[in-house]
């Protein structure tokens, strides 16, 4: 059934259809609407057989989820930004213990400076946590990925993070095709844990593991991720049969046939990129797009297959590895090792900076002419940067940088484009 609905609400309704048994809620913008909606459903009696717990921190949100999951309950929580960092120790613990928790990350920048808007700094900080990380392009995909995520997590006994762009997706009202409970039940069987705390069959979970087995336990996590590379497309195919929609999977190409230039990205910005590419295609430019859905595990072979004919690859990413540059682009380079296309890293949209189609046009044309820098910061205001750098050179006590730069930007503190 098609519904005009906020992204967060759509995700909450999808989660509810997945019959979670324990939901932990701790407020942090921009994921709050999701857990608020779930809280309403539990309190109002629409979502039964579910414990909704208002915890005191994100660290507790993940820790309660760990306890619940280890006791055989289907556990869900949501977070973003600082919240993800605050729970980070437990995030690693959940995957290390092999607990199939599903968590929404409504992607948001990491402070300082404090910023509530969208980029991928939060999810990227946990890319090595052992969680699978799926990135949604649209609200429809966000909704669908959550349903697939429970299935994926539980089949592999590994947690899954479904990443959706804060505000851009979470707060956007758009039409989605809501599945029926019957469809979800047919796709997602009840959770059958591999390990469970139960007096009927006592086990110890979380024992001390020394050098004699630690490597093997860690390798097992990697082996499960490699297995996920096979399973994710299978689950997407099965999803398509049950729901009639082609969502999920590892990665998707768009107009890459005969493309000399391929743009690689993730999340909602793929829409803007595709629009730009359509216009460039209309002008006869040979350009296409590769959208990554599964960032962890990273589909090296698929990316290589999609890009091996390209003369140049432009990776547009909403994250910055300070001191080196790109994060997604590093993985793309890995996929292309031995091949020699030009690879451009474009850091864009940090802290909610709008990624405008016009900027992308200019960017992609420069790429086509191979006049792009290896690392580009899209729409960076060099005046503001240079002014601050000059200030720091000229005076020792130059003061707090962010506040100086805000002053230089002027009164339009909310200027995003």
């Amino acid at each position: 059934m098609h519904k005009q609905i906020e992204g967060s609400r759509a995700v909450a309704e999808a989660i509810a259809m997945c019959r979670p048994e324990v939901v932990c809620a701790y407020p942090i913008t921009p994921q709050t609407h999701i857990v608020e909606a779930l809280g309403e459903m539990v309190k109002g009696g629409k979502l039964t057989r579910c414990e909704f717990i208002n915890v005191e921190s994100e660290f507790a949100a993940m820790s309660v989820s760990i306890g619940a999951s280890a006791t055989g309950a289907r556990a869900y929580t949501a977070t973003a930004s600082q919240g993800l960092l605050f729970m980070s120790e437990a995030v690693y613990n959940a995957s290390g213990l092999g607990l199939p928790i599903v968590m929404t990350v409504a992607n948001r920048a990491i402070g300082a400076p404090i910023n509530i808007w969208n980029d991928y700094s939060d999810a990227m900080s946990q890319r090595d946590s052992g969680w699978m990380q799926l990135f949604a392009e649209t609200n429809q995909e966000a909704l669908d990925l959550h349903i697939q995520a429970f299935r994926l997590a539980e089949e592999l006994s590994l947690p899954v993070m479904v990443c959706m762009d804060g505000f851009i997706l979470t707060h956007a009202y758009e039409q989605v095709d809501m599945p029926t409970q019957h469809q979800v039940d047919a796709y997602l069987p009840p959770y059958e844990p591999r390990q469970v705390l139960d007096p009927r069959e006592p086990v110890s979970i979380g024992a001390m593991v020394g050098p004699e087995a630690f490597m093997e336990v860690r390798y097992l996590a990697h082996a499960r991720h490699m297995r996920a590379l096979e399973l994710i497309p299978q689950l997407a195919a099965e999803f398509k049969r049950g729901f009639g929609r082609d969502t999920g999977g590892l990665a998707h190409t768009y107009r890459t046939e005969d493309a000399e230039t391929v743009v690689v990205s993730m999340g909602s910005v793929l829409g803007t990129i595709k629009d730009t590419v359509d216009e460039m295609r209309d002008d006869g430019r040979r350009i296409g797009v590769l959208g990554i859905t599964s960032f962890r595990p990273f589909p090296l072979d698929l990316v290589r297959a999609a890009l091996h004919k390209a003369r140049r690859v432009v990776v547009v990413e909403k994250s910055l590895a300070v001191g080196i540059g790109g994060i997604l682009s590093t993985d793309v380079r890995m996929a292309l090792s031995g091949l020699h296309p030009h690879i451009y890293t474009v850091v864009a949209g940090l802290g909610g900076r709008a990624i405008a189609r016009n900027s992308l046009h200019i960017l992609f044309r420069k790429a086509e002419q191979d006049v792009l820098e290896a690392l580009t910061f899209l729409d960076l205001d060099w005046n503001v940067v240079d002014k601050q750098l000059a200030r720091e050179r000229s005076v020792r006590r130059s003061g707090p940088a962010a506040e100086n730069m805000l002053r230089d930007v002027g009164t339009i503190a909310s200027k995003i484009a």
Partner: protein
Amino acid sequence: MPFQPIKFYQTGTFTVGNRLLKPEDRSVQSHRDRSNAINSGHRACQGCGEALGARYALDAAMEATNSQLIAANATGCLEVFTTPYPETSWQLPWMHSLFGNAAAVATGIAAALKVKGRNEVRVVAQGGDGGTTDIGFGCLSGMFERNDDVLYICYDNEAYMNTGVQRSSATPPAARTATTLPVGQNPGNVFGQGKFVPAIAMAHEIPYVATATVADLHDLEAKVKRAMEFRGARYIHLFVPCPLGWGTASHDTIRIARLAHETGLFPIFEAEHGLQVSALPIRRQLPVEEYLKPQKRFAHLFGAKPKWDVIARIQERADRNIRKYGLVQQETA
């Protein structure tokens, strides 16, 4: 075994053995079908108060719940010495997640059991004083505040023993630890810091709070069983001497714990819904030196020139506890 009446000369002592008690009053440890929740063969130090306390507490909880019990454990000595796999000592379902989240993990376990209708299965969380009063305090307070159906047991040996005896917020004033060394003008831990978590637990007005020591294991067992009669958040703060960290003889663990009680330095009481309902009386208050002297962590207070001013401040703390918790009520009445 048949019940033997207790003779008068034995009643004022601590020597009343199990065989002299009514069968129902005997220690769980004397029961043939005790659960051995922490089985022998673990790697605790000789004379470890925590191992002793955990064994009595958990076996009592197992008996009270008909062995329908799940444990969540914080990182710490108890976790480490019981589980170098495959040598786990735990005979009940047991989980260790992190240092600071045992209370929250227990909340999750309790929530899962509730949603699955397994109301007969109960949850215990446990940690040392570091995992309880410091790093796990946020999760503990959250669990209390929500009144989650968890019994949390803190094994308080007054410092971070697993990492090599560093100060925690449960370390008493003047005590030597690796981070409060007996050097400088004011050797040992400072006065006027630290927190007494049982009082903070009471402030949450949770159904049941109790303190106990390993010197009175019948009292401990009774409190664990009492705790299991309540639903909601419960807290037992168990005083467990650490021979390694305190510099005491392994065979003195029980004696030191008893002295902590008899000097008034560690008050033993129960509280329900925020109000104190009982206190274990001190028969004969002892001066704090008797407790401090056998412990190397307080050695810098004695020697050729005892620091009587510091000892007097510690005595003040003991006296204050006695007044506050009514520990010698019987004598003043």
